[in-house]
């Protein structure tokens, strides 16, 4: 019996290895499924729902749903893209995203998804919450204003760096990432080269004195949309 599974995505005939998630299987075939909390090498948790697709007519998170033989998958449809747009817009409205002054602007995955999905302004009212900044560490800070609670840093710290130094506190809309020390980041063993630092998709975890080095126009997503690497087979 073959180890390959056949499926279609937006009508395109595809094939992928057994054991792949829908998101990975699509990428293997040069199809980009927008995603935010998923990151290669990390255990997927399916928390942001940006990767929602329709598998055999039912909505599912592509990052946590295993591919099955003969699946009919919808991805790049108006309905699904509008759902993704709504999620991205909610993330913009529930935090404080001042892109013009953000260190990560131009290479931020949240912003890049908004560009790719053609968001001109969120449909939801801005909440302008009061959020904290942890600038206690000499070379790294966490800016809660821009955190989207994707948990990539928490998972990377534990799964890749082997250090339980970051975690979530609070519940529901109040959930926040925090360093596991009463002294904040200054009290934990973290360094700029750690995977947990690189895992942040937005401008929440920033290495000090590294920002604004790349001129506007040449940053990661200035001219090339997010996902273009997958679509050109270079990812």
């Amino acid at each position, binding site marked *: 019996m073959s180890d390959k599974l056949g499926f279609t995505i937006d009508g395109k005939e595809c094939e992928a290895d057994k054991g792949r998630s829908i998101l990975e299987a699509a990428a293997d075939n040069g199809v980009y499924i927008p995603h935010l909390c998923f990151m290669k090498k990390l255990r997927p948790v399916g928390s942001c729902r940006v990767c929602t697709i329709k598998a055999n007519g039912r909505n599912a998170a592509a990052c946590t749903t295993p591919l099955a033989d003969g699946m009919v998958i919808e991805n790049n449809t108006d309905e699904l893209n509008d759902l993704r747009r709504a999620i991205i817009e909610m993330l*913009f409205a529930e935090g*404080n*995203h*001042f*892109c*013009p*002054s*953000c260190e990560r*602007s*131009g290479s931020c995955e949240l*912003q890049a998804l*908004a*560009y790719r999905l*053609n968001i*001109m*302004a*969120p449909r939801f*009212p*801005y909440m*302008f*919450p*009061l*959020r904290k900044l942890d600038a206690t560490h000499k070379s790294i800070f966490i800016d809660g204003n821009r955190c989207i609670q994707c948990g990539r840093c928490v998972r990377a710290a534990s799964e890749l760096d082997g250090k339980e130094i970051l975690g979530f506190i609070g519940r529901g809309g109040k959930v926040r990432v925090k360093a596991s020390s009463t002294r904040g980041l200054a009290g934990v063993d973290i360094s700029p080269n750690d995977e947990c630092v690189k895992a942040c998709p937005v401008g929440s975890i920033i290495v000090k004195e590294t920002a604004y080095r790349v001129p*506007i126009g040449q940053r990661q997503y*200035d*001219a090339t*949309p997010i996902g273009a690497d997958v679509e050109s087979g270079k990812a």
Partner: protein
Amino acid sequence: MPKPKIATCSLAGCFGCHMSVLDIDERILKLAELVEFDKSPINDIKNFTGECLVGLIEGGCCNSENVEVLRSFRKNCKILISVGECAIMGGLPSMRNGIPLKECLDEAYLNGPSVVDGQIPNDPELPLILDRVYPCHEVVKIDYFLPGCPPRADLIWNALVALLTGQPADLPYEVIKYD
């Protein structure tokens, strides 16, 4: 047929978006062929002279005067466009939004390190500051949004030409940016 009219204003903004309008360079001559400028800081016309087709709004609403001007634009312009991050989401001025107003005023006028004999301004001539900075579409209906800080000149140009000529807008990936 008389030319359609366009009006512009800067509310709680820095005039950067207006600079970006000027940044369309020599195309401004073409724009002058397509439209007539009504109330705008560009020509210093202070009051509307009649119904305008397009109103460009820079900046959000941080005081009562901003709200009044924005409402007069809504009344006098058929199509209202939020231009730039401040109009769309409050921008830099709205960084005060999570902080209670009294604390902001105290810090600026009483406790700031460079303040001598401070006093919170309360002259009746001054517009009242709002409890927070409001994006324009939370005050009146806005028809279109042109993001950027400032929006790229090409974005403003392409959008205006599309509106004035009734053609679909050509908005390439590179021109829609939030910074």
